[in-house]
């Protein structure tokens, strides 16, 4: 029986007091304990930003790489060893800005990866610039006259790409967030969990109080069906007075790994190189010469 302590790395967190990342760490540990996933079976991949620090604070295999590039790293790791549970932790600037292109194309490929986005709608590590998800009018020291661009809507984008699992969590609702992370890890295919989190240091608009007044569970709407792409898309556009939380869209389909014949015999790292397999090709080539 794995206890919560098994997942403590012992590294002191370098986040501001009151940071939403503590809630995500807490919820993820809860999810991993409930799933009884052994630390050695988990690979956490992160990029750069406050979310990039996340795997340092969890006892498991981890890869902390380049800004915006966590998804391609995670995809290749999953292909080389599909037995690993691969979880990506990145931020809104990391995943939707610098890594926006990778986000789109990893969804298309549908590897069995859980992509958790710490969405505080601001750049934290570089001290307070607007991020791709900052709302219009949001003022920072680099946007002193307010953001003039439309915010990126990650859920609507993912649903439009037929992403196989699309959910939104909130750090103020920990048990619910832990359940979402559990569901995302258990889902076979690419699972996006966008997590709303306040940044007490650089985002004085989207605070705990701001969210508390707005968030509600999708389950409250009895007619909502996460298997309906159009309805899910419609729900994903809801933002403002009411902000829905939960699983927006579910579309189980074959994963990338399942469609690669070489992986049927097990993870690549365990497969022996068999020179005999290329003999036919070599004979064919020598016949040509």
């Amino acid at each position, binding site marked *: 029986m794995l206890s919560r302590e098994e997942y403590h790395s012992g590294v002191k967190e370098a986040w501001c007091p009151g940071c939403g990342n503590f809630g995500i760490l807490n919820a993820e540990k809860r999810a991993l304990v409930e799933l009884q996933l052994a630390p050695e079976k988990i690979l956490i991949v992160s990029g750069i930003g406050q979310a990039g620090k996340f795997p340092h604070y969890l006892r498991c295999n981890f890869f902390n790489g380049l800004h915006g590039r966590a998804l391609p790293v995670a995809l290749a790791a999953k292909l080389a060893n599909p037995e690993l549970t691969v979880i990506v932790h990145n931020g809104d600037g990391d995943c939707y*800005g610098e890594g926006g292109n990778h986000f789109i194309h990893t969804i298309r490929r549908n590897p069995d990866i859980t992509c958790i986005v710490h969405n505080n709608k601001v750049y934290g590590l570089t001290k307070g610039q607007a991020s791709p998800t900052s709302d219009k009018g949001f003022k920072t020291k680099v946007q002193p006259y307010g953001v003039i661009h439309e915010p990126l809507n990650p859920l609507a984008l993912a649903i439009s790409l037929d992403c196989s699992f699309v959910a939104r969590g909130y750090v103020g609702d920990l048990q619910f967030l832990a359940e979402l992370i559990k569901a995302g890890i258990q889902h076979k295919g690419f699972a996006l969990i966008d997590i709303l989190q306040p940044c007490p240091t650089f985002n004085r608009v989207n605070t705990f109080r701001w969210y508390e007044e707005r968030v509600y569970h999708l389950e409250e709407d009895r007619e909502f069906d996460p298997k309906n792409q159009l309805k899910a898309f419609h729900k994903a556009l809801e933002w403002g007075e009411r902000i829905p939380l939960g699983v927006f869209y579910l579309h189980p389909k074959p994963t990338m790994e399942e469609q690669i014949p070489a992986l049927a015999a097990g993870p690549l790292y365990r497969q022996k190189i068999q020179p005999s397999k290329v003999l036919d090709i070599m004979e064919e080539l020598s016949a040509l010469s």
Partner: protein
Amino acid sequence: MPSAAMITTPKKSNKILMAGNKAIAEGAILAGCRYYFGYPITPQNEIPAHMAKRMPQVGGCFVQAESELAAINMVFGAAAVGVRCMTSSSSPGISLMQEGISYLAGAELPAVIVNICRGGPGLGNISGSQGDYFQATRGGGHGDYRTIVLGPASVQEMYDLTFAAFDLADYYRIPVMILADGVLGQMMEPVVLDPDRRSRSDLPEKNWALTGAKNRPPRVIKSLYMGEGELEEHNLRLDKKYRKIQSQEVRYEEYWVDDANLLLVAYGSSARISKAAVNMARKRGIALGLFRPISLYPFPSAALAARAVKIGRVLTVEMNTGQMIEDVRLAVNGSCQTFFYGRPGGGVFDHEEIFQYCLRLMGQA
């Protein structure tokens, strides 16, 4: 948006206390840069922050891009239509921009790129470093090209050289890089602002800029040369330009060199620290001197060689494991002894440390 009344023009010969990053932004604005594109990264965030505030005040445009790749390609676009534009970043972000810089060089477009260098390789750390000397002075991206590289050593120089960079970029149709580091970017010093400073008067007309084709044939900006011999011809033309730059744009400073019997060679932050070591030595009657390259490309090879051969011993001091020393060795070409002192990975030495090392070299410790 700010009103016209908010436009602040510094008073004539205004001496104010300013951080290096802000001085770069002000130097660019004075030079007429009205388009800034960038992406957040430490330790240069003060440049975009200042540009974000100032661009609308001076009738310019600030864009925070979605990535460094976007930022350098925005620079590419703005340069192509003939306006003065710039971007800034720090080491990993500059690496991301290399493809765009190579294309700018190939297409012969003027632009200013600022690297407030941090420790590497990879993500490294956010401390000041000189680990990007090779990348900056060897072109950095793919292909046979160079960019002009200027290495300021004070906040005043960050202001002055950024201004000069825009003139050089326009005159030679070339990307110009300001290579500083986190220490210079963050520190504050008095700067004399010079609002009356004007660009050189011999700048060529931008008769290549994409300004619309009314009453004339359309213009093309490209770096693709597929015809037989075309690319070779293009490269030879670029080489001719680089040779002209090598002969005309060399900048350096010499300090206490006339009677020196050990010559320190250093640029940027390490030159400041080396200068303090020279001062320390001179107070004790020890004859250290300093040669400070300001243009890192073109490297002041001839001037350095002339000085070094008289002194006989040269110590290159860098915040890395030895990069500029290769240019120093090429310059002196075996005519004197060469030594190296460096600290990598964001490690910064102090003047005492360099002074003690000099004493050991001179057999006086």
